[in-house]
């Protein structure tokens, strides 16, 4: 805002001032002489006083003194008997003194006025500078995206920046002069007395407030208050900065709801897991007993009837026994498999090379009389459950041994692929009977088998176990194969300990 300010008169130079004194006395003298000619009496003294006053007013004290001296000389010379001399009679002296005193008084008043005028001008200039500075600061506050407003101690808004207008929808003209908490319908997290107590104590307060916009919508803001005190230290105003956190609060609420749902789902899963555990327990206990009876009494039958039964009947008895045995194995494998899914993983840094070594020692016990060319490549250490990873390796290696049984010279290669950044991929390759890629999706299913039991024994749980172990390590298991040409089995593990 630009205002036109009145120009203060330029101070006169010394010559101009003295000129003014001479001029004003001359004009007064001329005027007095002319008026005397027309028989006006006793006008010269007021005219000279007027001249001194003009000189004092416009020229200053020095001027006034010069005008006074000139006035006295002119008065003596032109108006006091004897005329046209500078002689002064003693009886006229009091007259001069009164004149000079009166002129001095006028001069003194004039000087006083000038000084007061100067001070006023200075004060006005200072004020203008401060107004300019404040205006500039206010304009800067308008540039920020934050919502800033100032209110006095009776909550009346005195400043309202553009950010406030944008957030709340009230213009500065509408907001200034209103009570802030009424205008914005503020909802406080604590009583206003408590908040003010803290504000007065520490000079600051911050917290979350609910406010209402001009259009009636609610908004949640992170609010920071600063107390401004005047020169005497009395609370003068509160500067309040608001940031709109409505969206953040909404997201937090969403996250809370999602977490709650997650908690419920987890509880449900835990309940299901408990049921599963009870089921496994029941399988472990209740299915075994009849199986044991079948096997036991069949054995007793076999023993007691050995001499009575013909060969075919004896074979039937054998088949019952084998089936009981097989069912026992299936139950054991199924329980072991379910335990892999249920058990907690105990993850540490594990050397895969050492695990392969251990698995080979275990598997080699069953490879007597076989010619197997083992090729074991370098393997890294990784983060995982030692016993689970060992089981996965034993399953895959013994599979390779099993399905190369028909080869006179078996080749089994164990190694690691190094393409992935975040995963370790281990492979076991053999030159065994292989499989048809058409059935690759069935390989890792529970009790899925691609070969008849008389060709290759097994319950069909080994690869399902490998898959589950890989999954519990943030990876997966997969395979490639060709009938009669061998197979390659892969499993991946996450490198990061978090999975």
């Amino acid at each position, binding site marked *: 805002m630009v205002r036109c300010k009145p120009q203060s008169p330029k101070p006169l130079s010394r010559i101009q001032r003295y000129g003014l004194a001479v001029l004003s006395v001359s004009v007064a003298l001329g005027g007095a002489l002319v008026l005397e000619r027309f028989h006006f009496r006793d006008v010269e003294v007021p005219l000279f006083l007027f001249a001194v006053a003009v000189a004092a007013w416009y020229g200053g004290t020095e001027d006034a003194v010069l005008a006074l001296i000139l006035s006295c000389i002119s008065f003596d010379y032109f108006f006091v008997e004897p005329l046209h001399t500078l002689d002064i009679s003693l009886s006229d002296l009091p007259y001069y003194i009164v004149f000079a005193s009166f002129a001095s008084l006028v001069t003194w008043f004039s000087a006083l006025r000038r000084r007061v005028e100067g001070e006023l001008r200075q004060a006005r200039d200072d004020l203008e500078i401060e107004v300019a500075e404040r205006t500039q600061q206010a304009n800067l506050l308008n540039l920020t995206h934050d919502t800033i407003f100032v209110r006095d101690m009776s909550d009346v808004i005195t400043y309202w920046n553009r950010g406030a207008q944008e957030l709340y929808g009230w213009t500065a003209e509408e907001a200034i002069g209103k009570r802030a908490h009424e205008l914005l319908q503020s909802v406080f997290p604590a009583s206003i007395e408590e908040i003010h107590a803290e504000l007065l104590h520490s000079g600051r307060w911050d917290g979350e407030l609910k406010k209402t916009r001009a259009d009636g919508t609610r908004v949640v803001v992170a609010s920071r208050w600063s107390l401004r005190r005047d020169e005497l230290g009395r609370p003068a105003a509160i500067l309040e900065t608001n940031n709109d956190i409505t969206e953040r609060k909404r997201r937090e609420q969403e996250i809370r709801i999602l977490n709650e749902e997650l908690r419920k789902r987890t509880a449900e899963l835990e309940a299901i897991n408990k049921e599963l555990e009870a089921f496994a327990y029941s399988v472990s206990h209740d299915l075994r*007993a009849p199986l044991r009876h079948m096997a*036991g*009494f069949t054995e007793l039958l076999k023993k007691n009837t050995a001499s009575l039964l013909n060969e075919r009947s004896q074979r039937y008895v054998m088949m019952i026994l084998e089936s009981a045995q097989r069912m026992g194995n299936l139950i054991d494998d199924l329980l072991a498999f379910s335990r892999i899914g249920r058990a907690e993983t105990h993850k540490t840094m594990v050397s895969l090379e050492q695990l392969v070594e251990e698995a080979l020692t275990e598997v080699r016990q069953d490879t007597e009389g076989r010619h197997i060319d083992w090729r074991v490549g370098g393997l890294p250490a990784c983060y995982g459950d030692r016993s689970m990873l060992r089981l996965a390796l034993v399953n895959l290696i013994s599979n390779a041994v099993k399905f190369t049984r028909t080869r006179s010279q078996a080749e089994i290669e164990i190694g690691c692929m190094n393409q992935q950044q975040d995963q370790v991929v281990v492979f076991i390759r053999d030159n065994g009977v292989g499989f048809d890629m058409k059935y690759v999706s069935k390989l890792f299913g529970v009790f899925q088998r691609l070969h008849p039991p008389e060709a290759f024994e097994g319950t069909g749980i080994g690869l399902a176990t490998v898959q589950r172990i890989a999954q519990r390590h943030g990876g997966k298991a997969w395979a490639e194969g060709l009938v009669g040409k061998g197979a390659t089995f892969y499993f991946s593990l996450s490198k990061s300990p978090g999975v």
Partner: protein
Amino acid sequence: MSALGRILLVEDDPKDVELTITTLEEYNLANEVVVTRDGEEALDYLYRRGTFTTRSNGNPAVLLLDLKLPKVDGLEVLQQIKSDEKLRMIPVVVLTSSHEERDMVASYRLGVNAYVVKPVDFYEFVNAIRELGVFWAIINEPPPGSIKAK
């Protein structure tokens, strides 16, 4: 051969009872076997209550205890025995179908003397029963006050 200790078999499944008795008979260990069919009956025997009020005094040399029993289950029987001053010295062998670790841990925590999982395979089952019978009824010296065949 020293005197045969009395075996108290606590087993609800009649087929298991028969298989066990048959096996023990085969090795001449069955003479001193008493069978109870649930936990309550087993405790009745030990405390000479109910149908056992008239039995002669003395504790069995060993108790073969199934865990899954009607009325009072095996773990409760075990707890009762091990917390009773007069019974706590009786050797107790849990003979169960359960592979579950928590059963095993609970049994040992209560002070069981041995924990045997019944094998599915008949020969292994026979071996286990025979060895149990021989060890506990013949080799092991039972605590004073146990019943032995003269």
